[in-house]
């Protein structure tokens, strides 16, 4: 809080500055003009005897300057503290917030480019009389650098605490809560690592459902294990995040901070073990690729009986059959047609993937949890379903049939044309394919488009190679219309599924809003259909449809999922608050409280194997046990403090408050069904 400027320190700094100035003008700093300002703040100025008090070193580097993490990377230096503490007071090691990466000319630095706050905990001895002053002095040496120069800076910080009752003011609480959010949380379970042939593989327990972006990174604390400036490849393997990078040497234990890429960080220790090579996920990719290819092939095949494609195909097929050309000619035509179709579809797909690549850099990673994306997909699927059901038509350009009928030599062009002209019809299917490519790697996306093209070309290809088929060609007719209407049913089912997902994201209100938007959208499409029947242009109606979509997407983004306070959660559990706990205790009710997070594998295992089982639920219900759940996924500091009070740094934490008891029994971190069922009785 107070920065004492002792005269001798000033002289020291001036002297040092002169020394530096004489050696290298670039590195010289005028005294008192530090590039990194540090403020020392205690969470309470009146710590109770026998308690811990947290001190924050709130550092602010000047713009363009950066400070260093505990492991500075390829170059740099960690912060060094020299304490002068009253007798009996001890200080912990410095805790660092999650750093960022800075690669300069191939040299990796683990740094803070903006304000950052480190923590140290002081132990206040018991038995001190209230009012005893505790002068705290600390000399902090920081290295602060730009991309060009480094300057070691010293801050002589001091503050005086007074032994008291440990009161924390609201202002301090708010500041510390904010700073604490930047600290890595203990992941709670141990990782594994294997180093062989200069390659390190680290497996970190990370639930399959927890977010993981392309920016995910493992910041190593153990020196001489990983090559800092080598890229890290992060993949998922079930409930594991696997990091693969170059190794520098061999170690017996690997400590570090795992950052999934959303700003959070998790302290984790990895021990030697076997980590499967990343070939495994590749294999899964290829089986998925085959499924995708098959599905796309089928989709392309179905496109052939769409009203706008079928005429082209049948005209071309009939001309082939009628002319009675040689088999070789028929085959050449079929192959050229196929090439035309496939190339155009791949070009369209490539363009879409290009758009996706542009989108990827602005973070498509979590798009399926974005209600706006879900609503857009809902409206798209609804439009396809209504189109299939015959509510409105997508216009086929007139010249399509004309061009496709002619040109016996230009089969390639016909194919290209068929694929291109078919886009109004294939558009909806392309939309679905695009939806899939958003979540697939680019090569799988391209494979889907390839399948779509091959499927589209397949009937003509068969016609060219199997003369019997040419003769058995079905005539277009009413059956096509019936078939199309049947196809609308699965599309409507898809729309319902999307509405359900929307409900999960935005609650009942959000789902209702989504359905109202869908109704408005359907009404506009119905108007389009009516005008089409009367042969009137409907540009205005299409604009209205677009307007409804945009307005709906804007509206859904404004809806907040209702706060779950008081709402009954899974398995009859209520959200944890200290007030609710106190109320239940006052009523003399037994309480089981558990603390979990989406990124905690152990928590998930315990929930599935013990807490959320019917046996436990029934046992709790019978004994009138209230279950409280604290969700620490976003690192809520209030919950964090409560967890810390039970001598745990993080989740999982399981507390059992027997009937009428104020103090909980802390349960082990691995639960069994039997243990929980036995609780109410014991």
């Amino acid at each position, binding site marked *: 809080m107070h920065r004492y400027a002792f005269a001798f320190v000033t002289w020291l700094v001036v002297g040092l500055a002169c020394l530096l100035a004489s050696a*290298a003008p670039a590195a010289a700093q005028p005294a008192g003009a530090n590039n990194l300002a540090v403020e020392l703040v205690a969470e309470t100025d009146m710590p109770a005897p026998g308690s811990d008090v947290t001190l924050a070193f709130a550092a602010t580097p000047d713009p363009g300057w950066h400070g260093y993490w505990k492991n500075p990377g390829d170059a740099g*230096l960690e912060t*060094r503290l020299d304490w002068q503490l009253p007798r009996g007071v001890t200080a912990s090691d410095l805790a660092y917030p999650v750093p960022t990466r800075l690669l300069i000319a191939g040299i990796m630095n683990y740094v803070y480019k903006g304000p950052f706050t480190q923590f140290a905990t002081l132990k206040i001895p018991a038995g001190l009389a209230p009012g005893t002053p505790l002068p705290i002095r600390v000399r902090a040496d920081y*290295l602060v650098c730009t991309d*060009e120069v480094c300057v070691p800076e010293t801050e002589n910080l001091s503050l005086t605490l007074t032994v008291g009752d440990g009161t924390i003011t609201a202002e301090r609480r708010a500041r510390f809560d904010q700073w604490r959010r930047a600290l890595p949380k203990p992941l709670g379970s141990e990782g594994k690592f294997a180093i062989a042939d200069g390659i390190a593989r680290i497996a970190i327990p990370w639930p399959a459902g927890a977010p993981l972006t392309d920016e995910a990174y493992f910041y190593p604390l153990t020196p001489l294990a990983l090559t800092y400036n080598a890229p890290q490849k992060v993949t998922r393997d079930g409930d594991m995040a696997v990091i693969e990078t170059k190794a520098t040497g061999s170690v017996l234990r690997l400590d570090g901070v795992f950052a999934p890429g959303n700003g959070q960080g998790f302290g984790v220790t990895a021990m030697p073990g076997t980590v499967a090579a990343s070939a495994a996920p590749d294999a899964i990719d290829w089986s998925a690729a085959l499924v995708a290819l098959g599905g796309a092939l089928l989709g392309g095949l179905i496109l052939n009986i769409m009203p706008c494609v079928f005429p082209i195909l049948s005209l071309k097929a009939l001309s082939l059959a009628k002319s009675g050309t040689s088999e070789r000619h028929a085959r050449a035509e079929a192959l050229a047609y196929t090439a035309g179709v496939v190339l155009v579809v791949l070009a369209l797909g490539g363009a879409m993937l290009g758009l996706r690549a542009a989108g990827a850099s602005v973070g498509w990673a979590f798009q399926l949890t974005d209600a706006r994306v879900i609503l857009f997909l809902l409206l798209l699927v609804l439009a396809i379903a209504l189109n299939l059901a015959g509510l409105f038509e997508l216009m086929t350009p007139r010249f399509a049939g004309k061009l496709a009928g002619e040109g016996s030599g230009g089969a390639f062009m016909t194919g290209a044309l068929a694929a291109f002209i078919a886009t109004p019809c294939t558009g909806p299917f392309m939309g679905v394919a695009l939806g899939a490519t958003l979540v697939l790697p680019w090569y799988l996306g391209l494979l889907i488009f390839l399948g779509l093209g091959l499927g589209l070309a397949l009937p003509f290809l068969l016609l060219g190679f199997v003369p019997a088929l040419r003769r058995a060609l079905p005539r277009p007719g009413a059956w096509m219309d019936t078939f199309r209407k049947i196809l609308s049913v699965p599309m409507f089912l898809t729309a319902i599924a999307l509405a359900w997902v929307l409900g999960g994201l935005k609650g009942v209100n959000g789902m209702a809003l989504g359905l109202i938007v869908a109704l408005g959208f359907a009404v506009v499409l119905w108007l389009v259909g009516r005008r089409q029947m009367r042969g009137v242009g409907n540009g205005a109606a299409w604009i209205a449809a677009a307007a409804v979509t945009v307005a709906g997407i804007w509206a859904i983004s404004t809806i907040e999922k209702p706060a779950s306070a008081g709402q009954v959660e899974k398995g009859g559990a209520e959200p944890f608050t200290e007030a609710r706990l106190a109320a239940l205790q006052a009523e003399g009710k037994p309480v089981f409280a558990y603390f979990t997070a989406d990124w905690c594998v152990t928590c998930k295992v315990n929930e599935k194997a013990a807490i959320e089982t019917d046996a436990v639920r029934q046992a709790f219900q019978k004994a009138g046990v209230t279950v409280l759940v604290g969700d620490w996924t976003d690192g809520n500091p209030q919950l964090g403090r409560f967890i810390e009070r039970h001598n745990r740094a993080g989740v999982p934490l399981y507390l059992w408050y027997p009937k009428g008891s104020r103090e909980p029994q802390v349960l082990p971190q691995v639960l069994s069904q039997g243990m929980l069922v036995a609780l109410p009785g014991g």
Partner: protein
Amino acid sequence: MTRLIPVAAILAFALAAPSAAEQANGKAATDFKLTDASGKTVQLSDYRGKPVVLEWNNPGCPFVQRHYDSGNMQKTQATAKAGGAVWLTINSGAPGKQGHLDAAGARKFVTDKKAAPTHYLLDPKGVVGKGYAAKTTPHIYIIDAAGVVRYQGAIDDKPAARPEAMGAARNHALAALNEIKAGKPVSVAQTQPYGCSVKYAD
């Protein structure tokens, strides 16, 4: 002589990020040729038969200043040379970057600081620096009489910018030289170097 860093590799190094431990302990050190502050061409393999210490230098770096202003680096250089070793100080700073020296600047640095390297070598393109994956100033490499890399890392075990923390430090460079001389394996053969980053060209 036969394993001179070829031009293509130089280009590749200049384009790609240098990766760590390009020179593995126990493996032969890649040969190189550089011009020293007096214009003389120095080749690593010329010193086969003697242990060679490589020291990366940037006179503008506070960590380097700490070791020179306290006299620690000069003392280490003199002790190493007295024990029969060759000391090559290398400056891989790019022109325009902090600590870059031309030949005259390097001569002035050696005179002013009473430094005692066998040669002060100029590597303004960072070719040797990147070939050795030199990361910091100071960064130390020790190559034995047979041309094999035996030590790489920090100069000592007190990573700090303050001079007064140096007293009780273990000098990794001198310890490794002593063990090599005694025919023993180097007990601390790799450490994490500390200091400023080498100011390579962007």
